[in-house]
């Protein structure tokens, strides 16, 4: 069981690292698919302009940090929930063994 875990971690790490490894030595920016979609729209319909803009648009550094904030908030919530679930389970197991 432990072996399979390692395999999963390796696969995930490989999938994430591979793009960087392949791009070594090249000077390239990672284009986001959302930006590419906008380009495609512009090519299909050059006349189209977005009819409304975002209410608030953070600058690039702030955007990076806000994404990080979102990821951290999510990770914290996820970790906390899993931790509490584990606590409850162990408490239940302890109660059951006390009764016996």
């Amino acid at each position: 069981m432990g072996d399979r875990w390692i395999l999963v971690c390796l696969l995930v790490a490989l999938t994430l690292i591979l793009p960087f490894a392949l791009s070594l030595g090249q000077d390239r920016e990672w284009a986001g698919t959302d930006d590419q979609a906008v380009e495609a729209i512009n090519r299909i319909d050059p006349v189209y302009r977005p009819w409304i803009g975002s209410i608030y648009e953070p600058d690039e550094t702030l955007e990076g940090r806000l994404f990080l904030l979102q990821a951290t908030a999510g990770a914290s919530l996820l970790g906390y929930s899993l931790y509490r679930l584990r606590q409850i389970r162990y408490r239940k197991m302890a109660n059951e063994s006390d009764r016996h």
Partner: protein
Amino acid sequence: MHIMEGFLPIAHAAAWTAVSTPFVIHGGQRLSRQLRQHPESRLIAGAAGGFMFLFSALKIPSVTGSSSHPTGAGLGAVLFGPPAMAVLGTIVLLFQALLLAHGGLTTLGANVFSMAIVGPWVARWIYGLCRRGRITAAVAAGAAAAIGDLSTYLTTATQLALAFPDSVNGFTASFVKFVSIYGLTQIPLALVEGLVTASIVRLLLRHGQGELTAVAVFDKN
């Protein structure tokens, strides 16, 4: 995945919003009822929501040379059911639209439809198929998450192709174009999402069984 603010013509934006609204309302009712009747399911909801927040914030480079976000909706769909995901997904998308200029308010309906409705329902369907095929819950959840992720992007491609059909070859040509942008890039990301989802489901099964059986309709424990 997220159609940017203003990049759906007003008619399309309105239409998708109208389509998504009943799902979100129904999902909200189901979710609040579930949380009231089973207070312990709040932790599972926290895990599902937290996972979605985390994963949709990750911008991951792909082997194709571009980068994209996974959806993180598969886990919640398997644990909580698709109706609740409509609500959780809306919250995530709203956060990103308001604070990050990622997606938009006019495109919220369309993005909710692809990421919080189609994705979870496809994930649930795949999960059911896998379980009937005697596949273990964790692997089934992983497959469900990965395929659900891809279905979200296919939906986005469809939405964009409907709004911007190619002047010569119509919907099909546009659809192919958008799928080629999203599709190949997304495959490794969907894989990662599937693997991580499978791992978490396994963790949950070992440490949170009581809560899972109370909440998750689809878990066969």
